[in-house]
């Protein structure tokens, strides 16, 4: 190691000095993973049989085949939609309204902040696997799938795509993501909604370690007519840090430092505080009718995907 290297290392940010840039894993989406995706796609059809089709209903009323409602006839309406049975029975001219059918837009928002790569990077791997799996299910159902990576801004954006054949493009995109940067969901999701006018499902895959508060980010999606889904990536090890004695802790994203003396009592408090934080997230989502799915890194991604399916609501 040259003197210059030493100087660079000494002057590098704390997180980089301490080696929190997670090494990339080439095997993230291997053959085994792809086989599981195929299985998931088949299972998803069986679970949602009859309801899930290649097309998706929207709240727009239009020229579909599914009856939606009646309204009074106004001049200029197409006579073909007048409900003559109603007219015969009640003497009122009502027009039948049908739900308009269109393909659904699904946005996978992957948190690419440093905290996602903390430790051995399991959270970031799990987030990418889940994004890939759900995206594949979406593609298999002919939905429009878009993936973006965010930290304190939109760090990467994959153009909207559809069709199963594009899954490899998604793999390639996800492989290119790396956990680096601070978390600011509010700012980054404001950018996201500005870039994506077409509303749809917004699946936020994150550990929600946002110093500014996770609520603001989710609210941005809500307020901009997206249907937010929260896939909360959880690493239980973070509730039990292996610390003891006098240490100086610093935030892996912000570098904020604090000197503490870790005792057993403090570790117990830490566990409680961590659980409370997870509970706050869940309560917020439940209160605001935002579907919430905790995604434990200890649980395999296919099991998690099935759990998401079974909880329902992800795909209508």
């Amino acid at each position, binding site marked *: 190691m040259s003197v210059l290297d030493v100087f660079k290392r000494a002057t590098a940010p704390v997180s980089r000095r301490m080696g929190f840039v997670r090494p990339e894993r080439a095997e993230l989406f291997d053959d085994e993973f792809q086989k599981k995706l195929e299985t998931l796609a088949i299972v998803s059809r069986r679970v949602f049989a009859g309801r899930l089709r290649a097309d998706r209903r929207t709240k727009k009323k239009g020229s579909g085949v599914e009856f939606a409602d009646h309204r009074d006839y106004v001049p200029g309406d197409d006579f073909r939609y007048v409900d003559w049975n109603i007219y015969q029975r009640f003497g009122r001219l009502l027009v039948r309204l049908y739900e308009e059918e269109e393909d659904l837009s699904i946005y996978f928002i992957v948190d690419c902040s440093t905290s996602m790569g*903390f430790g051995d990077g399991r959270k970031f791997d799990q987030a990418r696997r889940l994004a890939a799996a759900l995206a594949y299910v979406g593609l298999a159902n002919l939905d429009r799938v878009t993936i973006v990576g965010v930290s304190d801004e939109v760090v990467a954006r994959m153009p909207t795509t559809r069709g199963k054949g594009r899954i490899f493009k998604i793999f390639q995109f996800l492989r290119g993501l790396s956990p680096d940067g601070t978390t600011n969901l509010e700012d980054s999701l404001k950018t996201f909604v500005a870039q994506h006018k077409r509303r749809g499902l917004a699946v936020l895959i994150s550990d929600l370690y946002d110093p500014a508060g996770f609520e603001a980010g989710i609210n941005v999606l809500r307020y901009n007519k997206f249907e937010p889904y929260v896939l909360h990536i959880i690493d239980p090890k973070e509730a039990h840090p292996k610390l003891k004695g*006098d240490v100086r802790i610093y935030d892996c994203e912000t570098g904020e430092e604090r000197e503490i003396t870790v005792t057993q009592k403090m570790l117990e408090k830490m566990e409680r505080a961590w659980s409370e934080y997870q509970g706050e997230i869940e309560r917020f989502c439940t209160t605001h009718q935002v579907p919430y799915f905790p995604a434990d890194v200890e649980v395999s991604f296919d099991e998690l995907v099935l759990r998401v399916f079974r909880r329902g609501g992800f795909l209508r």
Partner: protein
Amino acid sequence: MIFAGFPLSTLLTIGGIAGGLVVVFYILKLRRRPVAVPFSRIWQRILRDKEATTLFSQLKRLLSLLLQLLLLALLVLALGDPRLSRSITKGRNIVVLVDASASMKATDVKPSRIAVAKQKLAKMVRGLGGSDRMLIAQMDASLRPLSTMSGDVSNLQAAVEQIHASDTRADLARGLRFALDSLRDLWRPEIIVISDGEVGDPKEIARGLDLGNADLRYVPIGKSGKNVAITRFSVRRYPLDKSRYEVMLEVTNTNDKPVDVELTLLGDGQVVDVTRLHMGPNERLPRFYKDLAGASRTLEATIKLADGQHDDLPADDHAYALMPERRRARVLAVTHGNTYLDAALLLDEYLDVTEIAPSKYPPKENFDVTIFDGVAPPLSTNTGSALYLDPPDGASAPVKPGHSIDMFGFDVWDKKSPVLRWIDMGDIQVAEGHKLEPAREDHVIGASVKGPVLVAGRRNGRRFVELGFDPRQSDFVLRVGWPLFVLNTINSFVEEDTGYLSSYRTGEVWRIPAPSTAEVATLVDPAGHKHRVPVKEGRAVYLGDQAGFYKLIVPGEPPVTSMFAANLSDVSESRIKPVDKLELGGQKATAALGFHAGVRRELWLYLLFGAILLSLVEWVTYHRRVTV
């Protein structure tokens, strides 16, 4: 306050450097190990409650630093060995003379007198005042200081452990002179004698001794004196029959009551004789065993009380002796025939005699000794040392025969010469012979007024004895001295000393015969310990203090090994009745006082104890998170 250890300036330097290091290390300790966390806000929730205690936390850290500095200060002060100046000037200087003579092995007090003496001395050491200093010396045949004049208890205790009793008598006079020399110009000098009182004649000891201002203290050891001892033990072979020997021993009853004793004599470990003796009070009973056989090397005498009990001093219940080793000497007689010579050689069965005519000389075999009777051919290398009887003029005798002399006798002779041991040469009358003309290095051991007639010496490394007349031309062959002369000469050649000492006496400087070629020999004592001893003029010199069998190994090719025995043989040491009082030159020794175990005035001990206590407090508070 006075610093007996490091001076104040040194202490300040050490304290400054060490204090600086402590502070530096403390500051370094404050730089904590950085650890990354994924989300510090969660930690902030926990630590929110701790904000209020920051000031207290800083105070605790300061307390921790203060504790460490205090600890350092205590240790630095301890290094200085601070003492009250008052106590420094009033400390005693004590020399303890511990009697380690044979009588201290007595077991009338359990486990033994020497062990009790050590216990008492150890107690004194523990009770030594903070400013007192002590020197411990073991007193037996020699005087051995076992420590320096020191107040260090651990050093003194180590010295106490080294004390052991020997098989010698104590030399109190020498001990006192040493003590006075050691205490010269020191304040409050004190001499403590720990002894059973058997240290010799007090008047003799006090002669020329001036104790000055030194206080003499006495610690008596022992309570009774029941003892029977072997006080003399000696053995010798008969000169003319070396397979047999006689033993002289003396048994002494040191009690005031009669006693029955069983005396056992062992030869080479086997019982030779057992005798039961009745001895009166303080009786010394000599015993002679004549014409004994059955032992070739070692003899040991042991006594025990006839009633099966043991006396109080086992050390003098044994005595040891070693007889000179016998080996068969090969003797060549070169003669035309000499009845008197043949008769003399027949007396010793350990001689392997070969007789040849002068024309057959030299023989092919090797011999230790060659006797040339009336001839003196050139000496062959394989025929050893030579005895010449009346060598002819002009032959190859080492000493040239001079002119003829007649009607003479021995007017002077060397009585210490081994050749003439036990022989009175004054009565011998010689009809005719030759005056000898010895070289300067030769030793004339017999001469008449007419000149030397008996000469000993060495030529080319080989010894010779030359007689200037034919013994048949004198009345020498008719006397008992003739065979003694022949055998003495042969023995001196083969170095078989009939005057061999069967045992040495402990407590004396021994001069053990050894090959003069060596300068250093190895002595193995009865306990098996090896000692390097110097060899001077053919004698190994050693001050022996243990009874028993010794082995002397002289290096060489091959190494020469010899054995000898040593005995206590000291009646005064066998009288073990303790003496309660000691009085020298009119000064009566008083009891040893002023030793109070547990009272130490050495502040450094307390400082060290304080430092340890503080360390303990720091350790406990650290682990209970009080000081961090």
